[in-house]
């Protein structure tokens, strides 16, 4: 019989190794955590700090308490921007979602030319938002835009205005541009999800004589729900933050008819240099999203089996 002391490492060495092993995962994620803290958390904490201070023209002066928040919440322009963003998101995202899902189901049917179609579908999502803005500006610009001139003017549509110059139509045109840009992405994401579904349940359902609608509602949709929830949430957040295309196409106008919180925050920061109030706006939007995302997460987790 060999003694323990001869074969096993000393207790201290084992503890040290355990400690090292326990630390190892943290070591691996440390670079990304440090990056996240430096580029996201510290600036965000600084934004919170600024939101409680009088900060104009790059100078942080006195503590302002909740004055920036009070001023912002009493500002009609802020509520208008929230309303514009809400209209944008609640029209654009459901349409993108439904068209994307429908397109994915069609693509899943082995349609002819799918291998050519799929790379083409990447194109709008691959374009820089600024390019998308310029592209649609050229298409819909009043009088000289490609579509404005060749379609609207020739067929007497919108005779008294142009799309982006009209407070009635500009927001809907921006929604259209967003749908154009992001529906193909949704389609491809959903298509990838469909391809990953197990085949066996579908075969069994087909043998049992289930029709396409029944298969869709009883099998496809429930199994796709986690993916749909995640993609839908990400698109929702992304659409609320939309900036580039709006900046290029309308810059929030005419009047304030297309001014979203992102456009307003940009103006407050880089035009008005009212950094305290702009930070308060950023914090309010963050809080609203934090609450919304948490509720969504809990619901999706419990009811939809997502996450």
């Amino acid at each position, binding site marked *: 019989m060999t003694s323990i002391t001869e074969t096993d490492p000393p207790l201290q060495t084992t503890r040290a190794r355990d400690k090292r092993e326990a630390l190892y995962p943290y070591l691996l994620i440390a670079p990304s955590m440090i990056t996240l803290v430096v580029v996201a958390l510290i600036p965000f904490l600084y934004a919170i700090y600024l939101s409680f201070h009088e900060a*104009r*023209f*790059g*100078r942080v002066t006195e503590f302002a308490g909740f004055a920036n928040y009070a001023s912002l919440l009493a500002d009609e322009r802020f509520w208008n921007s929230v309303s514009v963003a809400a209209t944008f998101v609640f029209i654009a995202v459901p349409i993108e979602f439904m068209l994307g899902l429908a397109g994915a189901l069609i693509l899943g049917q082995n349609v002819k030319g799918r291998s050519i179609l799929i790379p083409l579908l990447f194109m709008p999502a691959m374009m820089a938002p600024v390019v998308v803005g310029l592209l649609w500006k050229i298409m819909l*610009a*009043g*009088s*000289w*835009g490609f579509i*404005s*001139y060749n379609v609207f*003017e020739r067929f007497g549509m*919108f*005779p*008294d*205005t*142009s799309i*982006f*110059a*009209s*407070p009635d139509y500009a927001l809907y045109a921006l929604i259209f541009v967003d749908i154009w840009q992001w529906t193909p992405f949704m389609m491809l994401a959903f298509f990838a999800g469909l391809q990953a579904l197990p085949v066996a349940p579908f075969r069994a359902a087909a043998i049992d004589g289930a029709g396409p609608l029944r298969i869709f509602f009883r099998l496809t949709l429930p199994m796709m729900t986690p993916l749909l929830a995640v993609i839908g949430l990400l698109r929702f957040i992304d659409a609320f933050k939309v900036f580039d295309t709006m900046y290029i196409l*309308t*810059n*929030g*106008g*005419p*009047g*304030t008819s297309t001014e979203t919180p992102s456009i307003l925050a940009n*103006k407050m920061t*880089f*035009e*008005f*240099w*009212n950094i305290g109030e702009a930070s308060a706006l950023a914090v309010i939007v963050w809080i609203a999203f934090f609450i919304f995302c948490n509720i969504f997460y809990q619901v999706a987790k419990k009811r939809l089996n997502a996450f």
Partner: protein
Amino acid sequence: MKQSTKVTAALLAGSTFLSVPAWAQESFYTKAAEPYAGTTIRILDEVTPLQEKVFDIIPQFEELTGITVELELLGHAEVINRGQADMLSGRGFYDGVMMHNYQLAPMLTAGVIRSIDDYVADPALSDPDFNADDLIQRPYTTTSFTGGKQYGFNNWNYNEVYWARADLFAHPEEQAAFNEKYGYDLGPAETITQMRDIAEFFTRDAGETLAGETLEADFYGIVLEGIKGGSTFPTLWSALIKNYGGRLLDENGAPAFDSPETVEALTMWAELWSFAPPGIAEYSLVDVPTVMGNGLAAQTLAWSDFVFGVDVPGASPYAGDFVYGPIPFKDGREEERSVEADVSVVVISEASENPEATFLFLQWLASEEAQAALIEAGNGGVPIRQSSWELPAIADSEMTSLYAAMRSTLDVAEAKPKMPDSFEIMDAMSGIAQEVGLGRLTPEEGAAQGQAAMLEICTQCLMQ
């Protein structure tokens, strides 16, 4: 040495000296820059065809002084954002930053612009031949000086002019029809009422006749900048409201927008928009000359420097068919006429580590010599000096009506009042200008909402 050889040598030496360009001779700048030779300065300016010509003359300054100039040209919005951010952060990456006149008050309030008074008073740095009296005085004195201190020399005197289609005005059928309808001769508008009549007269649908030809597309009597931001509100304010006797602020700096004169001007503004292309609310200062160049409108109020890119053979099918004039005034108010000009100055950042070298460059750039070289390089341009009007590139130019219009504008052009909240004010008011133009607000509502928006931003709006 024979006498004749001596004479030949002297003549050769003399001719060699005379053939050296003035800028390459030993000059004040060479001596003044001795302590700063080898320094590199960075200047941020806005990109326009005229400003690009500065690259052509910078080597002259570098050769004279041994100071290296790194000039960076960016788009309008970016030069404002980046320039201001650099100055406000105290980083001092740029030694000199171009400021539109309405930017000065916010930046002066933030204390990030260096006064040049000490340099102007320093004989070692101040060019004795600078001749500040030759600078076009009203834009210069209202822009470069604030509170008794000087902050720079005007570098750009951008200005608006009246721009119209001479070929339409000269057409006999149009002349006769116009005279019959309005009771006076058709020609470039001198008054705002005439501009309105011309706008109404020439607004025609596709299928109607214009100057003897059937229109394939709608034609418009006027085009104006109407985008949110840009110079939409400055044009409304300076070229209409002030001409009608309205004002933004009273003599104490308090908002005074809701006057009957402003309502009258807004009424005219809305009427002019009704004769403009339907896309007017998205037209920027670039779109306006594009519309003119494409022959879609009869007249406009536009930035004169854009004319150089449009009224040239090959750039527009209507090149040579345009005529220019002073900004129209309100009938009976010629003496109080007002115009829109965006006078700009390159200021020295408070954070600059090379203020003296930067001052020398800016002073040289505004000098008679450099301005002459700049205008020659651009084969014309927008003068900041009275003497520039006499330069061959301008005096002998075929665009006589353009230069006469520019001169008329610059005679009375002035900087905007120094308002620390100028960006917020312009943003709020440009939205109201759009809504009045589009008929979403009546002129009375526009004046009232403008006043309320101003009061929300400031009750005493001038820099203290």
